[in-house]
C-alpha cells in the first residue's frame, strides 16, 4: 500500500484516473489522503519474458525466433508482440565469426569524399583520354549501384539478432554510396555528358539483383564480382591519367577488399558447416552463365576505354601495349577468382573452370 501526498489540488482527481488506467487500486479513505494498492498488471506483463540470447557475439543463438524482432540482443523480451519476417534467421547461413572485427575495421576506415580526394588536382586531359575516363566512370557507377542495392536488400532480411552482419552490410552499402559519389563527381568534373550504359552490362547486374539466396548473392557479388573489381580498380590506379582518377579508384579499392573479405569469410564459415554448399555455388555460376550466354557481355565502349587508358594515345604501338595490358587485367581477374575459389575448397581444375564461366561484365 502506497500513501500519496502532494500539493496539487487536482491530485486526487488525477491519481484516481491514473490508477484506473494503470490497473492499480485507488482509495481516498480516510478523507484527505490517497492510498494506492499495486495492481498485478505490470508483473503479469513480464511472465514468460525471455532473454534474446546473450549480448556478446559469442552468445548468439542458432535460430532466433521471429518475435525477438528488433529487440536488442540480450534484452529481456516480453512475450507476444509482432513477429516480423526476417527470413535470414539462421546463424549458419548469415553469420561469420569475422563479422564483428570486419565491422569495427570498416567503421574506422570511413573516409570523407569531400576531403579524402584532392578535387583541385588537374584533370586537364586530351579529349580522347578524358572521354575514356568518363566512360569507365559511367560503367563503375552502374556497377556500384548494384553493389549498393544488394547488401541493402540483404540487410533488410537479416534477423537483427545477427546485428554485426547487419552493421557490416550497412557500412558496405554506405561504402558503395561514397563510391557512387566520387565516380560520378570525377565523370562530371570536366562538364562532359555521361558515357554509355549497355543492355548486356545491366543484364549481368540484373542477375545479381535477382538472386534471393544470401549465400549465393554474396558469392556472386562479393567473391566473384567485387573480387574481379579489385583487379580492375588496381588497373585503373596504375593507368590513371590524372591524380583524381587515381585517388578515387584507390580509395574504392581499399573498401572493396573488405567486402571481398567478408564474402569469403562468410562462405568459408558456411562451407565448413554445409557440405552441399560447394555444389550450390557451382550451380549458381553455371545458371548465371547460361542466362547471360546470349548477351553482349562487357560494354564495348568500356573495353575500348580501358585500352585507351592503358595505351595513353591512339598510336598503334600504344594501342598494342594497351591491349596487352587489358589482356593482363583479364588474367589477373581470373587468377584472383581461382585463388578465392580454392580458399572455399574447390580443387584447382574446378576453380579454373568456374572462374572461366564468370560474367564477361566483370561484375
Amino acid at each position, binding site marked *: 500500500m502506497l500513501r500519496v501526498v502532494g500539493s496539487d489540488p487536482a491530485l486526487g*482527481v488525477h491519481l*484516481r484516473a491514473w490508477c484506473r*488506467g494503470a*490497473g492499480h487500486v485507488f482509495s481516498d479513505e480516510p478523507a484527505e489522503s490517497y492510498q494506492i494498492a499495486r*495492481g498485478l498488471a505490470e508483473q*503479469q506483463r513480464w511472465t514468460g519474458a525471455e532473454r534474446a540470447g546473450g549480448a556478446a557475439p559469442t552468445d548468439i543463438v542458432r535460430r532466433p525466433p521471429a518475435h525477438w524482432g528488433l529487440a536488442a540482443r540480450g534484452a529481456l523480451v516480453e512475450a*507476444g508482440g509482432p513477429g516480423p519476417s526476417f527470413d535470414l534467421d539462421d546463424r549458419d547461413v548469415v553469420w561469420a565469426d569475422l563479422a564483428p572485427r570486419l565491422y569495427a575495421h570498416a567503421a574506422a576506415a570511413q573516409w570523407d569524399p569531400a576531403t579524402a580526394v584532392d578535387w583541385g588536382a588537374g584533370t586537364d586531359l586530351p579529349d580522347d583520354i578524358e572521354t575514356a575516363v568518363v566512360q569507365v566512370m559511367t560503367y563503375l557507377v552502374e556497377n556500384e549501384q548494384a553493389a549498393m542495392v544488394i547488401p541493402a536488400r540483404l540487410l533488410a532480411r537479416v534477423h537483427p539478432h545477427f546485428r554485426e552482419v547487419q552493421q557490416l552490410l550497412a557500412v558496405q552499402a554506405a561504402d558503395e554510396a561514397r563510391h557512387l559519389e566520387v565516380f560520378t563527381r570525377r565523370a562530371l568534373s570536366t562538364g562532359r555528358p555521361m558515357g554509355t550504359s549497355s543492355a548486356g552490362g545491366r543484364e549481368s547486374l540484373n542477375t545479381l539483383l535477382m538472386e534471393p539466396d544470401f549465400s549465393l548473392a554474396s558469392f556472386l557479388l562479393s567473391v566473384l564480382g567485387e573480387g574481379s573489381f579489385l583487379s580492375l580498380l588496381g588497373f585503373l590506379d596504375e593507368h590513371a591519367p590524372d591524380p583524381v582518377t587515381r585517388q578515387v579508384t584507390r580509395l574504392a579499392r581499399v573498401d572493396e577488399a573488405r567486402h571481398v573479405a567478408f564474402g569469403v569469410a562468410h562462405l568459408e564459415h558456411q562451407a565448413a558447416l554445409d557440405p552441399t554448399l560447394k555444389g550450390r555455388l557451382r550451380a549458381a555460376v553455371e545458371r548465371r552463365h547460361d542466362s547471360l550466354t546470349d548477351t553482349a557481355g562487357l560494354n564495348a565502349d568500356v573495353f575500348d576505354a580501358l585500352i585507351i587508358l592503358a595505351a595513353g594515345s591512339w598510336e598503334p604501338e600504344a594501342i598494342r601495349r594497351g591491349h596487352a595490358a587489358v589482356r593482363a587485367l583479364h588474367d589477373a581477374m581470373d587468377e584472383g577468382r581461382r585463388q578465392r575459389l580454392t580458399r572455399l575448397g574447390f580443387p584447382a581444375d574446378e576453380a579454373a573452370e568456374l572462374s572461366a564461366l564468370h560474367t564477361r561484365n566483370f561484375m
Partner: protein
Amino acid sequence: MPGTTLLMGAVAYDPKVVTIWEGFRHYLAGKGLPFDFVLYSHYERQVEDLVDGRLDAAWNSPLAWLRAQRLAAARGRTVRSAVMRDTDQDLTSVVVVRADSAYAGLGDLQGQVMGVGAVDSPQATLIPLSHLRAAGIRPDEDVVVHRFDVGVGLHGDHIGGERDAARALVAGEVEAACMIDGNHLLFSQEGTLPAGATRVLAQTEPYDHCNMTLVDTAPTDLAEEFVELLLAMSYADPQVRPLLDLEGLKVWRPGRDIGYTALDRAVTQTGFYDERGGLTAKEYIP
C-alpha cells in the same frame, strides 16, 4: 443462427472497434465458443435489438444499459450487467474552471456559460448537470448550458465533445467545462489544457461506465461460457494482453448494477428516456 452462436452487439464509435471484436471473436472461437458480433452506428438501435432478442449480448454504454433495463422491464424481460472492465468502475466527472477565475463553488457559476459534452454523454453532460441540480443550480435557468455535440448517438464514447468544451474553456468562450476525470488528466498531459491553467471546481461521486449486458433470451450455456471465458482472460497471457490493451482494461470484473444511480436520476430528471425506455430526449437525433 440464433441459439447456436452467441451474438453480441457493439457500437462502432471508432475504427478500432472492428479490430477489438475481431480479436475477441478469434480468441473466443479458439476457446471453443461460437461467437459473432454485429456493429451498430449508435446505441439506440443496439439496445432495441438486444431487448427484441435479435442479440444475446451487447457491449453497452451506461446510458444504453439503463435504457435496456427500462425496455426489458416494460416487456417482462430481464437484462443483467454480466461483466465490466476494471476501468468501468468508480469513475468521476469534474467541473473545471480557469485557474485564475474567482469561482469558489458551483453556486458561483450562477448566470455563467457552462460547456458540456454531447447531449447523450453520461460523463460530460448528464451526470455533471444532475450534480449541479443536487447543488441547487438549475441548468438552462441558473446557468447557460453550451453543448458540444460531437458523436451524438455514441453516448459520449467520442471524446470530441469533451475536448471542444475544454478548448472553449481555455479560449474564454465558456466559464466552466465538464469532463470525466481521466480526460482532465489527458487534456492536461496533451496540452489541450495548458499546465496550471485550470482547476477542478467540483467532482461527482464515483459511478460506473460500460458493461456487457446479457438478455434473458440468450442461450444460457453459451452466455455462461462467454462470461466465464472473459473473466478468465489474464493479462499474463501474451495472446490476451494486446486485446485487453486495445479494449482498455487489465482485468474483467463481474458485472454490477450499483454504479448507475446518478445517471438513472439524470435520465429521469431530463426525461431522456421515459419509464418504459421510450426515446423522449429533446434535441437528440442519433
